[in-house]
Every structure is written in structure tokens, then in C-alpha cells.
């Protein structure tokens, strides 16, 4: 009995670790593809050569100055979105929740679009988006709190209503903006990594967010059982929900500031990992960083190399890659139960 027990315990954990290791390999693969493909194709062997003295200076410049920062942007954005999505789904106890559902991205979009529409560029657009995200977060925070007690559905309703308010404002800005700006505005809304500049803010946010999430991970398992059960298991539920809300909002804000509205990743990656058997948040969180990050790296690589004369907004491709994978896993999952 005892040996069998130990065997089963380690076996099921082993399987989980193997799946995370597989995701790590896929992630490395996405890095290689991202660095080697584009208008100038660079063979994998040349990538290794970059660190030697006889490196091709053109390759070195392309890889280190263009593709590497872009890849880091893509990875950190995807990872932030997947993490934020997983947190929102527990916080709202709703499988349809995604990082944007409470209107954080709507607030960011309104202020970013105003900045773009009046001709501002670069970091000012990002700063403006971040301001909008924080404003949206505080609005939901203040209104959902009401007379003190709140429930997941109250938070959800407040957020969804405010999000549609932001949505209407976005439509208004699009309809009055000058035609010359429309393309930039639409790209921002569909999610596009070419706006990103400095790689560090998102990477640092991701690192801190990841550590906090791992520290909280078992609490997430507990909270997904519902407020009453979580309380009776020792969770300080009000405090924890607000911590979760602020954390998820900050992660989302940083992702939106970097890349606009990249859809799909935050909603689908956590479900995809659950279908792989990684339901325990202590496993799901590291897996979400790897899977979310690599999905966006792949998508961005295709977005910028699919056509030679133009690049697509990356949001178009996340779904194109993610939908078939998800349907495949869902179909396989149903059969095996």
C-alpha cells in the first residue's frame, strides 16, 4: 500500500513535470524560429556562430538589435496575458473570463488611441495607455466595492459594464479620428508588437508577477472552490481577492501597454493547460508563462515574416495558431475521459 501510494504520487507529479519540460522545449524552439526567420533568413548554425569572432556582422546586427528585443517583447507579453487570464478566471470563478473582461484594456485603449490620434508617438503612447489602465482598474475597484461586501458576480458586472463604456468611447474616437491615423489605431486595437520600445518594464513585471503568483498558487486552488469553502479552509478571502485583482490588473496593464489588445492568449492558454492535466495552479502558473510566451513568439514571428512587404498585427495570428491546437486538445480530452 505504502509503496504503491508513493509510486502513484510521484508518477502523477512526474507526468506534470514532463509536460512542463515539453513546454520549455517548445518555448526554446519558438526562440530559435523567431531569431532565425524574417526578411533575412538566418540558418540555426549561424545563430550559434554569433558568439564567435567570425560572426557575420549583418546577422549579428539583425539578431541582436532587431529580433532579440522583439522576441523578448513577444514572450513577456504572451506570458503576462496567460498569467493574468488564469488569475481572472479564478477571481471571477468564470471560465470565460480573460484579462480584458473588466475593462482594463478598454481604459488603456481609450487613452492610447487619444495619444495616437493627436499625433503623439513612442513612450508617450505607452505612458498614456498605462494611465488609462490604472484609471480603469481604480474605477472598477471603487464601484464594485459599494457598501463594502462584494461578490464575484458584482465585480464581473461592474467590470463588464465599464468595459462596454470604454468600448463605446473607442468607437467614438475611431469615427472622429483623421483617416491618416486609422491604420495605426486599428493595429493598436488588434494587438501589435511594433509599438514596443524598452524591454525591461514588462520583463521585470513578469518576473515579480510570476514570483507572487507562485507564492499564492495554493490559495488559487482553494479560491476556485468558492468563497465560503475557501474561507472555511483558512483563506482571508476579501484581502486575497483584492490582491488578486490588483495583481491581475497590473499584469494586464503592462501587456496592453506593450502590445495593445492581443486577444485569445489570456482566455485560451489556461484552458489549454487544464486540458493537458495541469489544473493545480502550482503547475499551471509556470506552464502558463512558457505556453503564453511561446505562442506569442510564434505568432509574432509569422506576423512579421508572412508577407515581405507588410507585417500583420500579431493579434490576427494568435487565434489562427491557437484555435486548431485548442480544438485538437479538446477533442482528444473528451475521448479519453
Amino acid at each position, binding site marked *: 500500500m505504502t509503496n504503491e*501510494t508513493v509510486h502513484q504520487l510521484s508518477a502523477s507529479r512526474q507526468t506534470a513535470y514532463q509536460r512542463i519540460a515539453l513546454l520549455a522545449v517548445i518555448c526554446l524552439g519558438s526562440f530559435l524560429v523567431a531569431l532565425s526567420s524574417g526578411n533575412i533568413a538566418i540558418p540555426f548554425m549561424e545563430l550559434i556562430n554569433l558568439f564567435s569572432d567570425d560572426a557575420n556582422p549583418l546577422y549579428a546586427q539583425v539578431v541582436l538589435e532587431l529580433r532579440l528585443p522583439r522576441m523578448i517583447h513577444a514572450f513577456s507579453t504572451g506570458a503576462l496575458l496567460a498569467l493574468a487570464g488564469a488569475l481572472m478566471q479564478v477571481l471571477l470563478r468564470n471560465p470565460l473570463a480573460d484579462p480584458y473582461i473588466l475593462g482594463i484594456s478598454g481604459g488603456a485603449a481609450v487613452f492610447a488611441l487619444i495619444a495616437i490620434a493627436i499625433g503623439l508617438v513612442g513612450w508617450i503612447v505607452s505612458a498614456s495607455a498605462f494611465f488609462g489602465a490604472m484609471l480603469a482598474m481604480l474605477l472598477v475597484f471603487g464601484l464594485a466595492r459599494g457598501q463594502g461586501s462584494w461578490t464575484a458576480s458584482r465585480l464581473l458586472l461592474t467590470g463588464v459594464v465599464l468595459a462596454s463604456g470604454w468600448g463605446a468611447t473607442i468607437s467614438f474616437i475611431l469615427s472622429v479620428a483623421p483617416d491618416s491615423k486609422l491604420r495605426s489605431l486599428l493595429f493598436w486595437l488588434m494587438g501589435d508588437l511594433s509599438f514596443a520600445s524598452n524591454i525591461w518594464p514588462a520583463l521585470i513585471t513578469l518576473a515579480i508577477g510570476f514570483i507572487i503568483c507562485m507564492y499564492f498558487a495554493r490559495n488559487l486552488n*482553494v479560491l476556485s472552490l468558492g468563497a*465560503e*469553502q475557501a474561507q472555511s479552509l*483558512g483563506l482571508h478571502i476579501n484581502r486575497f481577492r483584492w490582491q488578486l485583482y490588483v495583481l491581475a490588473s497590473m499584469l494586464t496593464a503592462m501587456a496592453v501597454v506593450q502590445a495593445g489588445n492581443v486577444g485569445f492568449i489570456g482566455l485560451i492558454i489556461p484552458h489549454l493547460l487544464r486540458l493537458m492535466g495541469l489544473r493545480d495552479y502550482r503547475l499551471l502558473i509556470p506552464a502558463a508563462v512558457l505556453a503564453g510566451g511561446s505562442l506569442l513568439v510564434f505568432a509574432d514571428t509569422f506576423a512579421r515574416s508572412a508577407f515581405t512587404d507588410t507585417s500583420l498585427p500579431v493579434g490576427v495570428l494568435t487565434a489562427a495558431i491557437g484555435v486548431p491546437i485548442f480544438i485538437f486538445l479538446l477533442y482528444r480530452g473528451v475521448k479519453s475521459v
Partner: protein
Amino acid sequence: MSAGEHRDHSQQTSHIDCLNLQLTIGGRVLYNDINLSLKPGEVWAVLGLNGAGKTTLLHTLAGIRPAGAGQIKIKAKPIEQYTRIELARQIGLLLQTQQDPFPGKVIEHVLIGRHPHLTAMQWESKQDYQLAQQALSMVGLKDFENRNLQTLSGGEYQRMLIAMVLVQQPLCFLLDEPVNHLDWQHQHQILKTLVNMAKEQSNSILMALHDVNLAARYCSHCLMLFDNDRIAVGKTSELLDQEKLEQLYHTPISTIESPQGQIFIPR
């Protein structure tokens, strides 16, 4: 402690003391003055009509909703002086409803019950895992470890929830209709298991029940929640009779003698 030689619990510190407890729901006062003390080894039934306040009482005692007035002490210390996690080591609560939007394996779910005993970054140990397996076999779900929650029937789900509160290992169990969805075999098997556990390990149990005959057979004490802010507290053998039950349920009742003692049935 061997079977048959049970400690005299009357001198021990109560697990739960209610002093002039007031229960309110939605601003309406249900009961003004509940006094009871739950001692180690005791098994209590809470009886009353739908909406009488059984669940409200259990939730208040578990510290997940505030009392209207009065005081609750857990092991002689006021409940407010406990942190959430300390309280979860003393009191386990079985809820009437629970749903996980992301259902996983039975064993994963049951192991979440170990939460109050683990530190922030700690994983469940082999001992925790064995405890969960034991709890599953106690509730008759020995081979269900790797089943997905979605494939369980109502009664199996209920027993899984009972296993979860068992691995929490609290001193005091507050169970909201533990035999909900259970067939006769499992009603009796689980109540027997719980009563034995309470005797052998000096746990205490307070459970909301709708079956008076189960209360008569398995519970040492009863709390009857009448309407009009009236309660009755006492030993089951002294408290449960036809007259009080008729008042409690507003239903005429017959009493039948059986080898298992008196049986009450609605007329």
C-alpha cells in the same frame, strides 16, 4: 484509546461555546439567545424547518459570517482572536453546495483540504496523500482517486466533499446536511464512521439533519430551532418526543417502537 473505554468528556474544555448568540439573516433576527456548548466526543443534530437558520448557525460558528450579537468561543478563546488559518485547523465546514468551475481529479480536490496545515510554498507530503486515500476509503470512494469530478454522481460528489473535510482534520466538524444525496447504505456507513471518529479521537460534530430518525440514532445531543425565536437544547434521549417534533415541523407525527428504538413518521 481502545474501543469501549471512552474518556469522560464532561470535564474537558468545550470545542465551541455559544453565549447569548444572536442569529440574523438579511437584517431579520432569527434567534436572539442561543446558548450551547459543544464538548469533545459529542455529536449534535440541528433540526428545524427550511429557512429556520440551520445553515446560518453553522456558518456563524465556522466564523465565515458575523454573529448579530453575543459571543462564540472556540476552545475557551473568543473566535475573533483566531487567524483564519488557525480557525481552519480547529473547525471544518461541510457546505451544502459547492461547485468548482474547473473540475479536476478526485484526489487533487480532496488534497486541497490539507491547505490549513501547509505553509505557503509547501507541497502535500506522502503522509498527506495517504491521509487523503484513507479518507476516500472511509467514505467508500477507494478506487475513485483518478476519476474526474464531472463523472461523479450526486452522492459520490457528496462523499468526496466529506472526504475533503476529513483530511482537514479539524477538532470540530460542522456538517450541513451530510447525508444529502446519499443512499441508505452510505447514510448509515458515513454516520457510523463519523460517530466512531468523534468518540475515538475526541472530535465533536454539529450537523444539520432533516431525518429525525438518523438524529435519534446517531446524535448524542439535539438543537431544535422552532419558529418564533424559540429553541430547545439537550440530550437526544430527553429531547426528542412526538410533541416537540410536531411543534417543530407543524406536522402530525406517529411514534412506532422498533428493535432500533422509537421511529418517528409523519402521519
